């Protein structure tokens, strides 16, 4: 498996579109899928809860 295999066709000349680059990168997707809900749901939500003043 030393020599780089060229997948069929003229893919070399075509630039891979940005969207496809994102879609083809599982770890980037994992990053998006964890950061979005962590920031907007968990962190934001938890911040609102901890800033509720304590009754006395």
């Amino acid at each position, binding site marked *: 498996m030393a020599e780089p295999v060229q997948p069929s066709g003229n893919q070399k000349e075509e630039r891979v579109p940005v969207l496809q680059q*994102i879609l083809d990168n599982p770890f980037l997707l994992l990053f998006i899928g964890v950061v979005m809900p962590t920031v907007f749901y968990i962190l934001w939500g938890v911040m609102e809860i901890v800033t509720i003043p304590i009754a006395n």
Partner: protein
Amino acid sequence: MSELFRTCPRSGLVFHKPAETLIKLNAVTAVVFLAVGGILGLLVVMTRWPAVHLLSSELFYQVLTGHGIIMLLVWIIFFEIAILYFCSSTLLRSRLATPRWAWLAYALMLGGAAITGVAILQGGSSVMMTSYVPMPAAPHFYLGLILFAVGALIGCFVFLGTLVVAKNERTYEGSIPLVTFGALTACIIAIFTIASGAIILIPTFLWSVGYISEIDPLMYRVIWWGMGHSSQQINVSAHVSVWYAIAAIVFGARPMSERVSRTAFLLYIAFLQLASAHHILVDPGVGTEWKIFNTSYAMYLAVLASMVHGLTVPGAIEVAQREKGYTNGMFEWLRKAPWGNPVFSGMFISLVGFGFLGGITGVVMGTEQINLIIHNTIYVPGHFHPTVVLGTTLAFMALTYFLVPVLFRRELFLPGWAKWQPYVFGFGTALMSLFMMGAGTLGVARRHWDMAFSGAPFSFEFGGAAYMMMGLTGIFGVVSVIGGAMFVIVVVGSLVLGKKIEDKSEYTTTRPAILPLGPAAPAHHGKGFVAPGTFVLALVFLATFVVYYFLNWMYLSSVWPMN
């Protein structure tokens, strides 16, 4: 190290031996738990049926806790792990990364499920699957859940590892197939889900053994639903992938547009989990901005993605059928579909049930104002049985009918039953859910043993309509359980008694041929929409949705007279 592969002559699928064993094991374990959960479901629904009122109150809450956990977590997630291994190793023709870790994952999940199961059986943990603090369960109730989650997390990493192996060893050309991409979406959501679960359940475990003095109930609810809701989104991603897979298996259908479908999955990855906030809509303490951002803007993008899938799957089937010559009128392609094949009928009922019953009610409940009409009523299980039972469970059943001959090399046992099963199960579940919704709109509470409030200090008298709805819930719940039992009997029967299929495929160490690039989507020439029938169905869907949505605003205005 030489790896063993076999090619199934029926389907052309390539199985890596350890992956094949693990897929079978996880799927069979799932079905066993489905059977147990179904029996508990029968007991639950027979108790909510006012004329029967089967269990004592204590047993009812205990059994309901077991039903929720065994169905929602154990059955579904074991099956999903099987799907992850199938979509990575089998569909990419790759060896499974680290089968040993996959075995460990299995052991942890089984052990965890057993430990939590024992805790529920012992009776001190009837806290419902949500286990809200400060209601205490036994420590091992939480411990089992944590072990189960760790196991599932390992399964997710085995899936990701297999994607890496397949890429490095060049087992496929181009991008991963769409179905694998959908499984990747499920896996990503699962990782967030399990992380949220760990953040809240580990402290709760420590609280239950006395190391932590207190857990804030609101904090618990917010983070718990990061897990509880997101885990439903694992299911949605997984069953949508199954729809695509079945469309390809049964019709040779190709996605109408790979890019559109993948972008829809990307919307799931980015936005679906934020909708967890719809469970917190009536909680004080978190602000309106947080609620509205997460349940409106974000959730609608995710709903849009579901509508894209709901449109492109039948659209792809329609295109494939029209290519085969079923071109008469709007709907010949649908009329001439193989309605007697449970792989297809199960998938199609899943799609329609999920969209019309689960999807529409989900958007209604996710709207802050109209959520108030039905919050915590039996409308809620009336919404999620169509999503997780009609949608996810039935899609998984349909896939199982395809996998039994392929994986176990046996014909289906009682094929006549298999043919009817999706209809019985789909019909029973759909009607049970509709009547739950009806009763919920009239105010009948969920998780409630006695709607007559006998002996309660404040009494309330429901009208006859509410009682009738709960009676019909009971009757169709029994039909649904019969449909579920037919599935279990067919599957278990096939494994034990099914006729062996003559299949000469042997395991060899030859590396399977590289998975070629899929054929490009058909180019559409000529005028008009390529899938007019699907377009009409989509319009019907939208019209139903709009009418139902405004009906609920009307109900709201009659709850609080504003006119």
